[in-house]
């Protein structure tokens, strides 16, 4: 994760960095709090979509490969309702 892409996350109280080079072990989304902004889809279209029916977030891949880790973290950082969690 570069400081340019995901600024202020430590200050924002986001979870601490996962161990340096581990792949993303798990992504979860909270459809209750999702406000449908679609930021996650823009950041990581292979992992997130918006449902055709209600427009809320749909998780396409709960265990995305390591090369998508930065994109998933960006989704977490951009999500305005803090509905994306990366473990």
């Amino acid at each position, binding site marked *: 994760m570069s400081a*340019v892409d995901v600024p*202020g996350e430590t*200050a*924002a109280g986001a979870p601490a960095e996962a161990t340096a080079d581990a792949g993303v072990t798990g992504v979860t989304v909270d459809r209750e709090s999702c406000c449908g*902004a*679609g*930021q996650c889809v823009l950041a990581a279209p292979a992992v997130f979509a918006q449902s055709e029916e209600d427009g*809320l977030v749909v998780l396409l891949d709960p265990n995305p490969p390591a090369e998508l880790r930065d994109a998933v973290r960006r989704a977490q*950082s951009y999500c*305005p309702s803090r509905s994306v969690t990366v473990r």
Partner: protein
Amino acid sequence: MTQRSEFSGYPVDTGYPVDSGLPEVPIRRTCPFDPSPELAGLRTARPVARAVMPLDGSEVWLVTGHDLVRRMLADPRWSSSVDGGLGEDRPLRLKQPEPGMFIEMDGPEHARYRRMLIPHFTVQRTNRLRPRIEQIVAERLDAMERLPRPVDLVAEFALPVPSLVICELLGMPYEERAGFQEAARALVRLDSPAGETEAALDRLAGHLAKLIAAKRAEPDGALIGELVREGVLTDGELVQISMLLLVAGHETTANMLGLGTLLLLRHPDQLALVRQGAPGAADELLRYLSIIDAVMFRGAKEDLTLGGQRIRAGEFGLASLGAANRDPALCEDPDRLDVTRPRTAHVALGFGPHQCLGQNLARLELEVALQALLRRFPGLRAAVPLEEVSIREDAAIHGVDSLPVTW
């Protein structure tokens, strides 16, 4: 002098600047493109500062740091049901919003309306509008080409494009569009005399009532038609929702097109990149210009702490999106326009549950309209010197009143 709070690590107010009293909001721009340097000073010394609204003497908490602005806007203890504010000589107070005006609602009440609209604004759904937006843009450019030069880019391009796109979205019939556009335009020009604004509002409500009646008789697949078919909302709610979409999506996009073009004309290297289709251009222009900067009011519903400051229930806060978007904590060299920079977590579209519902549409409109404009007129230039361009200084949304261009 600043100290760091032991608890939050944020600078704590130690009374800076000691002798100059409270800053007055709005803090006006001295350059149309940049938030006032005073905001940068506050962001370093007092990112959550007491400020005064000179019109009525009331005080607000002015929030300028990127992370603090995001925290504030994502925090449900801050209410959006706020009345009064800039340009209105009545004190800020909490209000009861009109049914349907969900931008002023909180919690489940807000979510109920927003969720009915989200399916219409998803990334996928918005992309389906692309061919229509391209067509609307091309038609406006054709019309511009036929006019004697110089042409006012605001009147002929920046304002009509978003208003025609909203007509498309709502499902406004073609024969109604001219009247609707005229009324919408009178409404969004905040510089028009008060009486005129009210008359425009009435005309607009008339157009919308007619639209809703037509869709009740014959619902189609556009936004109002689908909401009517779902059968949950009253006519009154539908008028408010349409009005909100119109007001939120019209002047914002128009000012981004006007001010954005002017900015690019002053940065030819960046202009060339936008013409070539730099994918991050819309977001960088949004971040850099922060056209919504002085109207993000919230009211504290409970006692809370932000950036080491104790804020009491009943007090009001103002989030400076402009100061947040130029925070060095957000990106490298934040005062430089760079349409190739990696996407930032800027807050030009807000943050939290109210973050711009139309953001995917806004990005698409900006991308399509700016690229097409710069490709159609490779020699585009301002027809008057910058000092003569009439900047909207007092307006709630930053922009230009008119921009004479030639090519």
